[in-house]
């Protein structure tokens, strides 16, 4: 088990290290940190700060994926959370007070929780395929966010609110601290309780889990709620960073980045064992990639193509068929005998809509 866990995180860590070194070679001051006005600055800090929303969402996504699910609605939740908080601040009698900001945050988080309850309800109680269930909110969510903002970009000027995404505390950006806190919360929530084990059990073998008496419904509900809550906090961060709510573009494609981070981090899309640390590393890799593209002077437009190639490569490496193919190539070609794989043997089980 030790070696497995090591292996699982080793690859992403090596990849991240290489990326950082590459940057260091092209920009010798890349790894340096400096103190200015009591704030810590440096490329690493920038990467962490810019990557914070992705990390948050990827943490939630990790648990969802571990149960064999997927949450496509996180981008929409980001937009709704930002819209709800900014709309509240603008409409409140004291748009600049810290209390208003706190209430706005509370509203956004509650909105996130409710949206998560909704997703969880569709998946666990109604039994809709996760991808389809979250597609509904992905489609309608941006409309809801626009409804809240009235189709405008709502700008707010509230210093407390701004500090969520752009502020500093104890020399570090607050967004990094929030992300760290959520990470610790997730780790404690899953590892200090039995949640983590039960999530993995349900993801690894749903049939055996049922026979062991696990109530998968509650477990699945929790992960979707957690995922949406993370997305809501990320939404606050994103809108606070630009002190505005943009219902159209906030969190656009962030679900893709989050899924990518989870997969790169070593959690299989097939569900089961997950690693939150791996996911964080995966998210760092994605953010560093973006930075690297700038450092190397590659046109930033290429980033998306680059990411697409990375997703495909990682998925291919994870696919059992591709692994078998590689192994066979190494072992030399075998006579063309066909062996039953699970897909052929098992009668096709229909995925419930």
């Amino acid at each position, binding site marked *: 088990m030790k070696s497995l866990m090591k292996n699982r995180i080793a690859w992403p860590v090596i990849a991240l290290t290489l990326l950082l070194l590459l940057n260091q070679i092209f920009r010798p001051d890349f790894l340096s940190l400096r103190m200015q006005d009591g704030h810590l600055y440096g490329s690493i800090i920038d990467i962490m700060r810019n990557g914070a929303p992705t990390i948050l969402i990827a943490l939630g996504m990790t648990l969802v994926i571990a149960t064999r699910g997927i949450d496509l609605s996180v981008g929409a939740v980001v937009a709704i959370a930002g819209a709800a908080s900014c709309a509240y601040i603008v409409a409140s009698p004291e748009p600049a007070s810290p209390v208003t900001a706190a209430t706005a945050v509370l509203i956004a988080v509650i909105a996130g929780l409710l949206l998560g309850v909704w997703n969880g309800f569709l998946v666990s109680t109604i039994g809709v395929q996760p991808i389809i269930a979250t597609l509904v909110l992905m489609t309608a969510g941006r409309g809801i966010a626009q409804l809240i903002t009235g189709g405008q970009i709502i700008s707010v000027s509230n210093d407390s609110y701004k500090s969520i995404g752009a502020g500093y505390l104890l020399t570090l950006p607050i967004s990094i601290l929030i992300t760290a806190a959520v990470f610790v919360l997730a780790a404690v929530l899953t590892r200090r309780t039995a949640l983590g084990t039960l999530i993995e059990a349900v993801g690894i073998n749903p049939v055996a*889990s049922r026979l062991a008496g*696990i109530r998968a419904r509650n477990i699945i509900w929790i992960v979707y709620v957690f995922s949406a809550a993370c997305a809501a906090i990320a939404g606050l961060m994103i809108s606070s960073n630009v002190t505005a709510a943009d219902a159209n573009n906030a969190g656009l494609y962030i679900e893709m980045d989050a899924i990518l981070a989870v997969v790169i981090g070593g959690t299989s899309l097939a569900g089961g064992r997950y690693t939150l640390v791996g996911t964080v590393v995966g998210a760092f890799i994605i953010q560093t990639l973006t930075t690297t593209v700038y450092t190397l002077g590659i046109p930033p437009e290429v980033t998306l193509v680059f990411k697409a190639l990375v997703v495909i490569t990682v998925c291919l490496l994870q696919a059992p068929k591709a692994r078998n193919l590689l192994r066979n190539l190494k072992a030399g070609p075998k006579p063309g005998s066909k062996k039953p794989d699970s897909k052929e043997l098992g009668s096709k089980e229909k995925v419930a809509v």
Partner: protein
Amino acid sequence: MNEIVPVVEMTDIAIGFPGVKALDGVDFRLFQGEVHALMGENGAGKSTLIKALTGVYTIDSGTITVLGAPQQFSTPAESQAAGISTVYQEVNLCTNLTVEENVLLGREPRRRGTIDWKGVRSRTREVLAELHLGHVDPGSLLSSHSIAVQQLIAIARSVEINAKVLILDEPTSSLDADEVNQLFRVIRDLRDRGVAILFVSHFLEQVYEISDRMTVLRNGKLVGEYMTRDLSRMELISRMIGKDMEALAELDHAPARTRAGSAAGLPPFLETSGLGRKGSVSNVDLSIYPGEVVGLAGLLGAGRTEIARLIFGADRADEGSLKIKGDSQKLRSPRTAIDKRIGFCSEDRKEEGLIGDLSVRDNLVLAMQASKGWARRIPRRVQDELVAEYIATLDIRPANPDALIRNLSGGNQQKVLLARWLVTSPELLILDEPTRGIDIGAKTQIQKLVNKLADEGMSILFISSELEEVLRLSDRIAVIKDRAMVAEIKNDDVSVEDVMTVIAGGAQ
């Protein structure tokens, strides 16, 4: 019997999967105009043989000759082209399409590349009429028909391609008596027209009713080929399970056991009457007293596991009643059964027991943790104590709580799964094939454990295909045959042969 060239001749067939030899040097012959039964317990290699013949699996060695021509099948399409057609138990048709499409899918008459729907309709009508299914509307959806009719439509598909060989894999498992008769009429009709029919069924009586000859397999090897009328039921069973008559007679009789529960006048822990589920098992009347071991005897596939699943709530019963300690209960899910202090070790360790990527520790405390809910984690210290205790008592190796369970040997995996239930201190433990595929040492340990648990007052429902084991451990034996409970024997001075006589008996 036509002593002509067989329609299908398979010689020295071998197929291996990682870790198992599914078929090893099997010969098989099928003649024109016969109904040939392929017999053997689950895992004997029947399905593998069929799949080799239908091109689902490719054989590792041996030869297949169909109508005199050697064949190398690597897809179902190739096998079909050679005149072999198969109707599987789960009816492998598309229920979302119409009857006529299912009959002709992939072979629709075409005009200039376009499907000729009029031709499809008339061809389907012809074929359905041949099978006395003239009243079935070719344009109706397949899903609007009963399983029995769907099965006949699958046969219609084979008739349509003028199949020389028709394979029927467990065709009767979800049919009622009338439907079986109807199916048999069609089978006889086809046989009389010269079709070679390979019939696989777990229902002994049906095999004797319909088949002319049979081939018996055991553990992937050929036992023999017989005329059905020359082989008694007793002889068939002994060949299927691999004990000959004299050896059986010489086997030590299990010592009669009387245990505390029923003797002490305690009420039964579990009582079922007429318990059943449509398409699964029926008519289960079982009572288990505290401190008693009840064995389920019967051939593999006779319905033993199905009974276990009903009692555990893994499948919902739709007939009969179930009482626990005298109170009527509806077991809707395993969760409910576990709350009533029932535990269940499935026969399918890998698919239904192990959480392969988790550690021994996590697997061992899983059921207990599930009962407590996710929020109240069993403290690490308690986990450690439990795990250490059971690793020691059950002699689980390696004695490393953090080893991944999938890396353990079968016997040790089984012990962990047993321990998973023991930590929940159940009042009824259902053990389905707890000793299958594990080494002899572990096997003895598990048998001793069963004895000890019963002595301590636990009720145990013990399922095993080894009759000796069932006899050695059980106080009473329920005999299961053809998906129903047919007899209950008190285990005093009962021999393996006696039980087998009960299994073989029945309709005679």
